[in-house]
């Protein structure tokens, strides 16, 4: 077994006993990367020597992979887009500053859907990432690179971002743990914005304990982000073993309806039974506005995105089309620099915000968003957690949905409501399909109650062991 297969907490235990040091782990990680990266394509930037040097300087440093939409000072940060080619931010994101303070070791930048617009990591200008469990399938998106890297033992820990499910959905499809914290729990400073009111940085790890460990490292108030909350951060690793006895869990009926794959539903039902056996009280609940979540999301997210992406105009940085006048510079820079999905969403968002349509779309969507939030508030007044499948289907084939955006958008149908309501949620492995693809279980809590999630997820994981199974990666 290579040291790259260790979890962070196992690694720390060994370091404490002076059995290993970070440098050896990083060496094994790069061995794994050299072996499988051309098949998986999880990374868009790697600097082996710099990583090894850093590990030498930080003997207890845990290797972390970072999604390419998070600013890393002096290192490429491109959001998987041609328009940011050559861009090296002059500053570190808030989470990177915290990782630096924790003496983590930086492995590389991971692949993603362009500007995090997608559910399959196929829209990156660096080409698609492949799912380590089956190279014909997608790893999920948009943090597909981060999920694949952790799943394939090409990183110990990874940072992702989640706007509508972009951490949880790929975590489910790659058989790893993916946590989106409460909106405001982790600084967004330096996260290249997709939809500011929905974006949240989170963690992708091999098990629940690592998720608690990594969240401890990055959570907390950042004066550079006015949306980050000034609330004390508990030590999440301390609550893991509390068990589920007495936890009240709601099972929303709307999440088990049409479009949910049979095998997915069966695995999740089994998981609910398992948690009941362990002492949790599981009851069916209703979140009646669920059916509107995707529509609301595809008004609000593109609206904010159209504005957030306006800065990519070729004037200050990144790709610039060589043109004679200003207007052509704008048009051609954006025409050549952005991919199809980005253009589609910018146009959608621009339309939704334009005068005459603003009331009918943007304002209406905000109102429905409030109703969705109220649905959750109501359930959380009586329940500690909500359990659902993470993704309606296991990983699908590369190319299968890329030309059918509406079908693609439905991949996030079960994760989107959580972002609209600003809640914390995790996806953990809860089974496999007959063809051997992982299935994810989503656990949702009320704002700033990540602790309840950790208790439940850890108990399930320790009593089942799905997280221990590793993909047998084939070469293309």
């Amino acid at each position: 077994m290579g040291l790259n297969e260790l979890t962070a907490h196992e690694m720390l235990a060994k370091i404490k006993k002076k059995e290993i040091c970070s440098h050896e782990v990083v060496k094994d990680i790069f061995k794994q990367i050299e072996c499988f990266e051309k098949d998986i394509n999880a990374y868009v930037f790697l600097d082996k020597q710099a990583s090894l040097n850093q590990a030498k300087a930080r003997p207890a440093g845990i290797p972390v992979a970072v999604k390419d939409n998070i600013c890393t000072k002096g290192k490429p940060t491109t959001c998987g887009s041609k328009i940011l080619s050559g861009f090296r931010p002059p500053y570190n994101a808030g989470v990177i500053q915290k990782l630096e303070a924790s003496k983590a070791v930086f492995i590389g930048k991971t692949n993603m859907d362009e500007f995090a617009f997608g559910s399959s990591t196929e829209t990156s200008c660096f080409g698609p990432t492949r799912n380590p469990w089956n190279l014909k399938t997608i790893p999920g998106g948009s943090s597909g690179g981060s999920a694949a890297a952790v799943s394939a033992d090409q990183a110990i820990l990874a940072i992702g971002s989640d706007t509508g499910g972009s951490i949880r959905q790929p975590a489910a499809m790659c058989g790893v743990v993916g946590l989106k914290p409460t909106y405001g729990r982790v600084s967004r400073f330096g996260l290249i914005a997709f939809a500011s009111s929905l974006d949240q940085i989170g963690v992708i790890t091999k098990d629940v304990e690592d998720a608690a460990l990594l969240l401890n490292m990055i959570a907390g108030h950042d004066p550079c982000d006015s949306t980050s909350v000034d609330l004390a951060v508990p030590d999440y690793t301390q609550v893991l073993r509390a068990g589920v006895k007495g936890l009240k869990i709601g099972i929303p009926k709307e999440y088990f309806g049409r479009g949910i794959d049979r095998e997915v539903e069966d695995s999740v039902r089994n998981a609910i039974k398992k948690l009941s056996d362990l002492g949790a009280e599981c009851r069916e609940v209703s979140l009646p506005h669920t059916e509107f979540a995707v529509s609301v999301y595809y008004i609000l997210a593109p609206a904010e995105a159209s504005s957030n992406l306006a800065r990519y105009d070729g004037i200050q940085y990144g790709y610039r089309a060589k043109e004679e006048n200003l207007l052509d510079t704008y048009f051609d820079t954006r025409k050549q620099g952005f991919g199809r999905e980005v253009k589609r969403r910018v146009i959608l968002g621009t339309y939704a915000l334009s005068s005459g349509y603003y009331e009918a779309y943007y304002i209406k969507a905000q109102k429905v968003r409030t109703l969705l939030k109220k649905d959750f508030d109501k359930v959380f007044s009586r329940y500690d957690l909500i359990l659902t499948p993470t993704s309606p289907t296991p990983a699908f084939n590369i190319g299968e949905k890329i030309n059918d955006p509406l079908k693609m958008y439905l991949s996030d149908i079960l994760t989107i409501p959580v972002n609209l309501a600003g809640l914390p949620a995790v996806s953990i492995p809860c089974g496999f399909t007959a063809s051997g693809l992982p299935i994810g279980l989503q656990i949702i809590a009320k704002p700033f109650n990540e602790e309840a999630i950790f208790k439940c997820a850890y108990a399930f994981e320790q009593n089942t062991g799905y997280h221990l199974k590793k993909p047998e990666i084939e070469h293309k």
Partner: protein
Amino acid sequence: MKYEANIGLEVHVQLSTKSKIFCGCSTRFGARPNSQTCPVCLGLPGSLPVLNKEVLNRAVKVALALNCKIAGKLKFDRKNYFYPDLPKNYQISQFGEPLSYQGYLEVAGRRIGIVRVHLEEDAGKLVHPELSVKTSLVDFNRAGIPLLEIVSTPEISSPEEAYRYLSLLKSILGYLEISDCNMEKGSLRCDANVSIRPQGTASLGAKVEIKNMNSFKGVKDALSYELSRQEKMLAGGERIIQETRLWDAAEGVTKSMRSKEEAHDYRYFPEPDLVPFVIEPAEIEAIKDQLPELPGSKKERFKKDYFLSDYDAGVLISSKDLADYFEECVKSYNNPKQISNWITGEVLAQLNLRHVRIKELGLLASHLAELIKMVDSEEINIKMAKQILPELIEKKSSPAEIVKNRGLVQVSSKDQLAGIIDKAIEDNPGSVKDYQGGKVRALEFLVGRVMRQTKGMANPRMVNEILKERLKNS
């Protein structure tokens, strides 16, 4: 047909905080291009704005001084448009719910409504190097500088009133010490909306926006030109189109810039990167308590406490420094009327002559007070005092010293004056005759003779008295 004008003014004021509205960068004017920028004000990917508390305090100060209501919730919006000097291609401003609204300003007895006062960030500046016409450079030092937009209702009725409104506004901003209001440095900018309608009708005419006015006089001139242009058009049966026009100060005309058809759709929506928050009533009260006495109430107090005329009080309160200076003088010597006369007369003349403000003049209030006191006590006469004033400014020594050094002691001795007066009577029998024949003005001529003889050092009151006495007796 007679027309009436409806003028609305939009004033942008740069708040003179040390740092920018959403980041810690310096706001110093005139620095090397792009030397005062950071990821936030450059709008680099991933950067987020954080509101500068001091900016908010100053904005609330202005809003309260303009009698505005303060919004219960503070929120910002994005105004989306593409321009190379706009780092994010949107401007963070306030649209739906401005910081404050429904205020007013008393301008010469008339209340001009203030629709809203709101905060926003400034954009950068394009620089065009002269030799290469194909290149534009961008300086982002100005990007993120805090601006306050003050919008009046369109009820200003003449260019003169607009001028008075702006002067008063500038004076208030000066009193609050929140902006240097320098139009040349761009810290105060003004756009105007102008429409005219036949007198007595209710609906507003087509609105023309005028930009590019860079002095108060420019505003007045541009408005005068625009009003007569619109009147001529209507009189000639033409229709006024809604458009934006630029003031060309060199030619003295407004020129069409863009019509409404090309107007932008700014796609305003709430800025999701800044959390809305409430300004607590206690905070507003605390700011209210810090408000200085404003020009309006200061003027009333000056009239009441110092028995000054409306005009004199108006001149003295036009700037806070001048009003403070006046009160300092009064503290040294309690003769407000004389002090007011001196400040509004001789001192203002000196300021204009030297193109300086009172603080830069170097005339100590105690010196001016002393000078006036010497006149009142007849140590020197007024003519001598006026001669001394420039010396007081330049040499910075006290009036007593200067009087002593120049030997300027007023001749008040009856014996000394008697001889000179007798000679004047002897030399000017014609004037004596005129006076005795009832021409009172002839006396002034004789006084003048005596003053000339004494090189202006005679005590004019005594000269008068002695002359009258002699002429009665002879």
